[in-house]
C-alpha cells in the first residue's frame, strides 16, 4: 500500500492476505452478494478491484443471486477507454451495496448515443448515465489572449454538455451524473495562465463553474472529478503515457478513488449516506486518557501539536453537526469522568449539548453503538465510528459490519482529513431540514440503557488470536513496570506507587510473587498490559499460607477481553505450586478507580470486610478452578512445575 491517503483508500481496512483465493471462491458461489460486498470494503488497488469486479460481472451474466446487493444500471458516456473502468466501478459499487450493471457507449460515440432513441445507452433504460467527458472530449479551442474566444469556448462546451444531458433525459428518462473536468497540468505561460483569457486553465475552470450552475436546481448531479484530481495531484491524475498507449483518462493508480467517488454518489442518490457520527473520546476527541491524565493532563491546547490535531477533529464534528449529522459519544470511561472535559475544560469546542446520546461505560462498543442507533431510530448502516484504537475498530467491524469504521493513521493530525476523505456523509442536497436535524434529535447528551449484547463476543475474541505471556518481574521489564505502577489510575485496585528501585527489590524478594503480563493479538503486540504484586502472609490461625494482592493494575486498552480472568487463573496456579491456600484482594477507592470497585466480586471473590473509607477486602480459595478464556498462554523466566 502506498502512503497516499486518497489513492490507497487508506480509511478502508487492508485486504485479507488470501484475497485472491477469496475472489476465486466467490466465482463458485450460487449467492455471492454478501461476500462480494464484504470483500469490496477493503482498500483494494486497481488490479484487485478489477478482479473482484470481473467475478461480480460473471455472476450477473450467469444470473446468480447477488442479493442483498441492489441492482443499479449505469450508462457510461465518455471519451477514452471506458471498458477498463467497468470492473473497477462494479467492485466499488458493491462496497456501497449495489450490483452495478454498466452499459458502456461504443468508443467515441457520445452525441450519437445520447440523441438516438434506440442507442445502446437509451434502450437499456439506465437508472443514471455517467457523463465522463474530459477536456479531450469537448469541442474546445484555446486562443490565449482572446476574451471572446474564451467566452465562445465556454459557451459551446456547456451547450454541448447540456444538450447531451437533456437528450438522455428525454430518450431514456435517466438522470445524468455530470463530471467536472480536471485541468491538465501543462501550463502555457505559468502563473500568468490564470490571468490571460483563453488559456486552458481559465477555460476549463469557467466550464466547471458553468457545469455546477447548470445542474443546480435540476435532478442531474455533479460528480466533481476536477476537485478529486486536484486533491490527488493533477500531475499524477493525468498520465500522458497511459493516454497515448491506451486512452486511459487517468493514471491507473487513480482508478480506485475514482470508482469510490462514482459509487459514493450513487449511494447518496439512493439516500444511503450516513447520518450519525459516533466519537470515541480518549486520544480521539482529546489527546491522552482523561481517566489517567486528568483535566490538566489531556492535550487540547492551541499551540500544542497534539492538542490542535484533536481540536481539528472537534471542529470537523461541529461543522458536520451544523449540516445535519447527528453526533454521539461512545467511550470506555466512567460517565462522570468522561463528561468532565465537556463541562470544565476551557479549550473544548464540543459541548455536551452537541450530542444526542452520550455513552460512557465499560461495555463493548458494538453494544453501545447498537443502543445509540436504536435510540435515534437510525439503521446501523447510518452510523460511523471514529476511534483511535485498532482493537475497538476491529471489534465493531466484525460484530456490526454495517457500521462504517475508518482506519486511522498513527498521527492524530490526519484524523480529520481521513474522516473527510472517507466520504461517509456525501450528499446531493442541502435543505433547511438538514440544518435543523441535529436539533431535532434533541441534543441532550442522554444516556441510553443497554439491551442485549450486540453479538457473539466470545467468537470475536477467539478471532483475535490472542496470546497472553506471563513472567515474573525482571530487569528488562523494570522500567515499563515502574511506569505502569506510577501512571495507571483507572484499572488500579490499590493505587500504590513504587519506584524503580522498589520494583528491582521485588524481583528477588522470596516473599513476593510478581507477574508481568503481555498481550499479543492478530492486530499487533499490545506490550505490557498488566502488573501484579502478591505478598506472602502467614494466616493468623496458622491454618495455611495467604497471598495478599498488593498491586493489580491493567491497561484499559485491553478491557473486555477476559484478560483479568486469565491473570487470576495464572495467579491461582502459581499459588497452588507454592502451597498457598488463600488469595486476598484489596480494593482501595481513589478518585479515578471506581471502574474496578466490583473487580473481585466479578471474579468470584467473597467480601471479608469493608472499611469506613470504602476499602474492601476479599478472599478466594486457591483451589478455585477458573475457566480458560480463548487465548494461547506462554510463560517466560520461571521454572514451571509440571501441571
Amino acid at each position: 500500500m502506498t502512503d497516499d491517503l486518497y489513492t490507497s483508500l487508506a480509511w478502508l481496512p487492508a485486504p485479507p492476505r488470501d484475497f485472491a483465493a477469496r475472489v476465486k471462491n466467490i466465482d463458485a458461489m450460487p449467492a455471492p452478494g454478501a461476500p462480494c460486498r464484504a470483500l469490496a470494503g477493503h482498500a483494494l488497488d486497481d488490479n484487485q478491484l478489477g478482479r473482484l469486479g470481473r467475478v461480480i460481472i460473471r455472476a450477473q451474466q450467469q444470473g446468480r443471486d447477488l442479493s442483498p446487493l441492489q441492482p443499479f444500471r449505469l450508462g457510461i458516456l465518455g471519451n477514452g477507454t471506458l471498458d477498463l473502468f467497468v470492473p473497477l466501478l462494479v467492485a466499488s459499487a458493491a462496497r456501497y451495496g449495489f450490483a452495478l450493471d454498466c452499459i458502456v457507449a461504443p468508443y467515441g460515440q457520445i452525441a450519437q448515443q445520447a440523441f438516438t432513441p434506440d442507442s445502446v445507452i437509451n434502450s437499456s433504460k439506465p437508472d443514471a448515465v455517467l457523463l465522463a467527458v474530459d477536456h479531450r472530449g469537448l469541442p474546445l479551442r484555446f486562443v490565449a489572449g482572446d476574451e471572446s474566444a474564451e467566452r465562445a469556448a465556454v459557451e459551446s462546451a456547456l451547450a454541448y454538455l447540456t444538450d447531451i444531458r437533456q437528450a438522455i433525459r428525454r430518450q431514456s428518462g435517466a438522470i445524468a451524473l455530470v463530471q467536472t473536468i480536471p485541468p491538465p497540468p501543462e501550463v502555457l505561460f505559468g502563473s500568468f495562465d490564470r490571468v490571460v483569457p483563453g488559456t486552458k486553465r481559465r477555460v476549463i475552470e469557467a466550464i466547471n463553474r458553468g457545469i455546477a450552475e447548470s445542474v443546480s436546481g435540476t435532478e442531474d448531479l455533479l460528480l466533481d472529478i476536477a476537485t478529486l484530481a486536484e486533491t490527488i495531484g493533477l500531475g499524477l491524475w493525468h498520465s500522458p503515457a497511459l493516454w497515448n498507449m491506451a486512452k486511459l483518462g487517468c493514471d491507473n493508480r487513480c482508478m480506485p478513488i475514482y470508482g469510490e467517488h462514482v459509487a459514493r454518489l450513487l449511494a447518496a442518490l439512493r439516500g444511503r449516506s450516513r447520518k450519525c457520527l459516533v466519537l470515541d473520546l480518549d486520544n480521539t476527541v482529546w489527546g491522552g486518557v482523561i481517566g489517567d491524565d486528568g483535566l490538566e493532563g489531556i492535550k487540547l491546547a492551541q499551540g500544542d501539536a497534539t492538542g490542535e490535531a484533536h481540536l481539528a477533529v472537534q471542529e470537523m464534528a461541529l461543522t458536520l453537526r451544523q449540516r445535519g449529522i447527528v453526533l454521539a459519544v461512545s467511550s470506555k470511561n466512567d460517565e462522570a469522568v468522561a463528561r468532565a472535559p465537556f463541562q470544565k475544560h476551557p479549550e473544548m469546542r464540543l459541548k455536551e449539548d452537541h450530542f444526542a446520546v452520550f455513552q460512557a461505560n465499560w461495555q463493548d462498543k458494538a453494544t453501545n453503538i447498537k443502543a445509540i442507533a436504536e435510540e435515534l431510530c437510525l439503521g446501523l448502516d447510518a452510523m460511523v465510528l471514529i476511534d483511535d484504537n485498532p482493537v475497538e475498530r476491529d471489534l465493531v467491524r466484525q460484530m456490526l459490519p454495517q457500521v462504517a469504521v475508518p482506519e486511522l493513521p498513527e498521527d492524530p493530525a490526519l484524523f480529520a482529513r481521513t474522516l473527510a476523505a472517507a466520504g461517509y456523509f456525501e450528499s446531493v442536497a442541502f435543505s433547511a431540514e438538514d440544518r435543523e436535524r441535529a436539533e431535532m434529535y434533541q441534543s441532550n447528551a442522554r444516556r441510553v440503557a443497554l439491551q442485549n449484547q450486540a453479538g457473539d463476543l466470545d467468537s470475536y475474541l477467539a478471532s483475535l488470536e490472542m496470546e497472553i505471556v506471563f513472567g515474573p518481574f525482571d530487569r528488562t521489564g523494570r522500567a515499563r513496570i515502574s511506569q505502569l505502577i506510577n501512571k495507571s489510575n483507572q484499572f488500579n485496585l490499590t493505587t500504590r506507587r513504587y519506584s524503580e528501585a522498589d520494583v528491582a527489590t521485588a524481583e528477588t524478594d522470596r516473599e513476593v510473587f510478581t507477574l508481568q503480563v503481555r498481550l499479543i493479538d492478530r492486530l499487533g503486540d499490545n506490550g505490557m498490559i498488566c502488573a501484579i504484586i502478591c505478598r506472602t502472609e502467614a494466616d493468623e490461625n496458622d491454618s495455611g499460607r495467604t497471598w495478599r494482592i498488593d498491586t493489580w493494575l491493567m491497561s484499559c486498552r485491553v478491557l473486555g477481553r477476559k484478560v483479568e480472568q486469565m491473570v487470576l487463573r495464572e495467579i491461582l496456579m502459581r499459588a497452588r505450586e507454592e502451597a498457598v491456600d488463600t488469595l486476598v484482594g484489596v480494593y482501595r477507592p481513589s478518585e479515578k478507580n471506581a471502574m474496578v470497585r466490583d473487580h473481585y466480586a466479578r471474579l468470584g471473590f467473597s467480601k471479608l470486610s469493608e472499611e469506613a473509607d470504602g476499602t474492601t477486602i476479599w478472599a478466594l480459595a486457591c483451589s478455585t478452578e477458573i475457566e480458560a478464556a480463548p487465548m494461547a498462554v506462554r510463560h517466560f523466566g520461571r521454572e514451571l512445575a509440571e501441571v
Partner: protein
Amino acid sequence: MDEIYRRLAHIFRDVFEDESIAVAPELTAPEVPGWDSLSHIRLILEVQRAFGIKFAAAQTANLKNVGELAELIQAKTAAAA
C-alpha cells in the same frame, strides 16, 4: 531472465485468469484466450507495477511475442539498476 519469466508467468495467470498458461518466449497473443486489446493494457499495467518500470507506447505496441516483452523488461530493469 529466468526470474523475469517466473514473474511473468505469475502476472499472466493473474491477468488472464488461467492457471495453466505456460509462459514461454514464443508465446503470442492469439494463443492465449482472452488476450485482446483491453487485457493487453491490463497486462502492461501489471508488468509496469510488478517490475517498477514504465514503457513508452511505441515499445508495447509492436511486441511480437512474450520473448520480446521479456527482453524489453530486462533492458528496462537493467537501465534502472
